[in-house]
């Protein structure tokens, strides 16, 4: 997605997000612009999914404050807006982590999303690549104020490939959009409404379209998981490699998740936001059910090389691409370097880094430091 924007002709809308100014083409959403800035400035997005038309606006985790509408109409927007569905205007000023309102709203949305979540990460196949895990790690609290029974649902069987755990669902609607936009006929949807709304097929039908497996990839939580990978392994123990095969139905470009010689799981290739990457022809790299569920043998695939893993998740713990640290945005956002709570060197001379304690004989005593002080005084 970021590449798409960079390829376009010179940007001409100037937008300032958390004091970082950048230029983006018209029609860019605030979220897309914020992803170009990167770091903490980027709002989390649980329901928005770039390849899916019409997605977004529902989870409310990406709320931001627009403190200046545009150059023409500088009035601030009264309410927090969903950054994934609001396009930038020229001269717009947006506050994400610099606004207390945004932080408060974001924390409360995380709390709302978690009150009915089963928190069964230890037995959930999504753990390690779950966006709700990341979100609650970054914005959630350790305790809960919710003292009631978490909601539960009648179990539905979606067929031999897809496992549905409705209790984990955050109703992002991504799988509904996927079925709408990839298949001829959507067989599942949201039944009922409010807090008893659920994903189901209504007449206990199994999902059997040849592209329906993609709902597993778009699901931000562990509500829709791969039955062929169920309880096989934790994702962080598997080695992801990019591979391809000549597939008659789809692009055939996938990521294999293997442990040793055994291919445990096949997914589409995703970027650091968990969104499926476009292939060379610019189309989104959705993969078919046959590639995803049936080709679990190394011999079926031509290995391209190790997958590029972003550092944000636990999968990156063992094998990220290069040892470069993520870009730090804090100086830019605050306009100055962060003030340290206490500069230890100015308080205690014991920790003076200029003294190489390994070069003195015997244990360091006060004399060593006093000597240093005397030298320092002499120098002055």
């Amino acid at each position, binding site marked *: 997605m970021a590449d798409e924007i960079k390829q376009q002709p010179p940007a001409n809308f100037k937008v300032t997000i958390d004091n970082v100014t950048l230029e983006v083409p018209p029609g860019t959403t605030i979220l897309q612009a914020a992803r170009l800035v990167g770091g903490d400035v980027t709002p989390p997005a649980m329901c928005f999914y770039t390849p899916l038309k019409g997605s977004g606006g*529902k989870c409310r985790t990406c709320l931001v404050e627009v403190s200046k509408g545009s150059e023409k109409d500088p009035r601030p927007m009264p309410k927090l807006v969903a950054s994934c569905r609001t396009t930038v205007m020229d001269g717009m000023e947006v506050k994400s982590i610099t606004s207390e309102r945004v932080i408060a709203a974001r924390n409360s*949305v995380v709390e709302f999303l978690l009150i009915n979540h089963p928190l069964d990460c230890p037995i959930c196949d999504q753990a390690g690549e779950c966006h709700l895990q990341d979100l609650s790690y970054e914005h959630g609290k350790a305790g809960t104020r919710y003292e009631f029974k978490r909601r539960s649902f009648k179990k539905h069987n979606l067929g031999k490939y897809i496992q549905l755990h409705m209790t984990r669902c955050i109703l992002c609607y991504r799988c509904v959009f996927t079925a709408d936009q990839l298949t001829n006929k959507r067989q599942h949807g949201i039944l009922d409404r409010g*807090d008893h709304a659920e994903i189901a097929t209504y007449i206990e039908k199994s999902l059997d379209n040849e592209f329906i497996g993609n709902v597993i990839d778009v699901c931000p939580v562990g509500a829709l998981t791969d039955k062929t990978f169920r309880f096989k392994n934790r994702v962080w123990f598997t080695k992801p490699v990019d591979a391809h095969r000549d597939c008659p139905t789809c692009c055939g470009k996938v990521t294999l998740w293997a442990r040793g010689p055994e291919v445990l799981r096949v997914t589409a290739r995703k970027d650091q936001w968990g969104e499926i990457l476009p292939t060379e022809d610019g189309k989104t790299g959705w993969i078919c059910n046959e590639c995803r569920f049936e080709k679990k043998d190394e011999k079926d695939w031509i290995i391209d090389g190790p997958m590029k893993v972003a550092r944000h998740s636990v999968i990156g713990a063992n094998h990220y691409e290069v040892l470069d640290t993520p870009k730090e945005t804090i100086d830019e956002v605050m306009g100055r370097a962060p003030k340290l709570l206490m500069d230890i060197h100015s308080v205690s001379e014991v920790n003076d880094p200029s003294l190489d304690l390994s070069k003195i004989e015997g244990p360091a005593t006060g004399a060593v430091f006093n000597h240093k002080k005397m030298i320092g005084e002499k120098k002055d």
Partner: protein
Amino acid sequence: MSRKLLLENAHIEGIRYYDVYRKNGGYRSVEKALKMTPDEVVEEVKKSGLRGRGGAGFPTGMKWSFIAKPEGVPRHLVCNADESEPGTFKDRYLMEFLPHLLIEGLIVSSYALGSNTTYIYIRGEYAWIPDILEQAIAEAKANGFLGKNILNTGFDCEIYVQRGAGAYICGEETALIESLEGKRGNPRIKPPFPAVKGAWDRPTVVNNVETLAAVVPIINIGGEEYAKIGVGRSTGTKLISACGNINKPGVYEIDMTISVEEFIFSEEWCGGIKNGKRLKACIPGGSSVPILPANLLLKTAKGESRMMNYESLSDGGFATGTMMGSGGFIVFDEDQCVVKNTYTLARFYRHESCGQCSPCREGTGWMEKLLLRLEKGQGKVSDIDLLWDIQSKIEGNTICPLGDAAAWPVAAAIRHFRDEFEWHVTHAAEAQARNFGLAHYADPLPVPEAAAV
């Protein structure tokens, strides 16, 4: 006796049918409006100062002037008859007894907006009313007021009645449009607004039944004349559906110049509190507007008497005021329990939330559970603060106003009746046996000291 514009002829026998309606001056406004240009009709409505009667009170003329007019794209007028706000039943009365008034208003408004296909979206629970409306439409068509080339002006208009399936959320205009299109009734994310991209991506205006009916007297007597009725920016007449513990519940047409006290206690209107009891509280505009205790209801915080109009009811903001809303006037006597009432409302909003956005889906259920616990006497004092925190996190953070509508009643109940909530915790056993009663809510207001400027 104040002037009646909408319900003037409601008492006439057979007014439901075309012949009687026509004999009593019906469809005059269509004849008059179709001789004007559409823009002149919009201008007339603008001059009248008519405000949307569905709850938000947005000026109708202004809403009409926002409609986009791209070449070759049909426009639609949709009548919002999905009247589901607890306490509100004025539209039902209008449609049941004066269906031709609505049809007449719809024809004039369709002409003003250039809508050749107009829809009435009616709530599913009003099962018997679509028949009444369809009969009225057929009669109007038979007499040349609908169909092709109305009154030889070249204007075509058809009206269709579409039934909802019984969801409160489909009263929200974008959810209504989704439902009208045959989809799941989830509110859309705005912008784009319906005036630009509404039903089937065409420019659409959605108006309440009463708003559209009010267009008829506006055209008949003229916008300026209409604006003289009422006070300030609350022009014209408003239907109030009064219910609760009053002697004479029903639909009343008021001209917004009377005080709340007069409305509740005078014989002409509600006729006082039932069984000679005392007034405790009132929700003056349908269940989602803030509840007010008796003292603040009758007098504003400034000590002026509160009037039945948009400005006076909202005087003092949400701290000491409320809203006109849709006109569902719910009166509570001294025996009503505010905690139980708030729980009932929270249960309603939990049940009616569409479940699309997280704060409303999760927050309404949480509030309901906490309120049930408080109501049962099993709550904690900290629950009250938690409720306050939850409602403040829902309000303003959702796609549509249902989140706000769910948050406001809880906020207002805690703001004004906190001691009753606390009593439910501290006197849990007693709270199960009897009601808190009136406490000091009916006391005269303490006169605020003149603030040093």
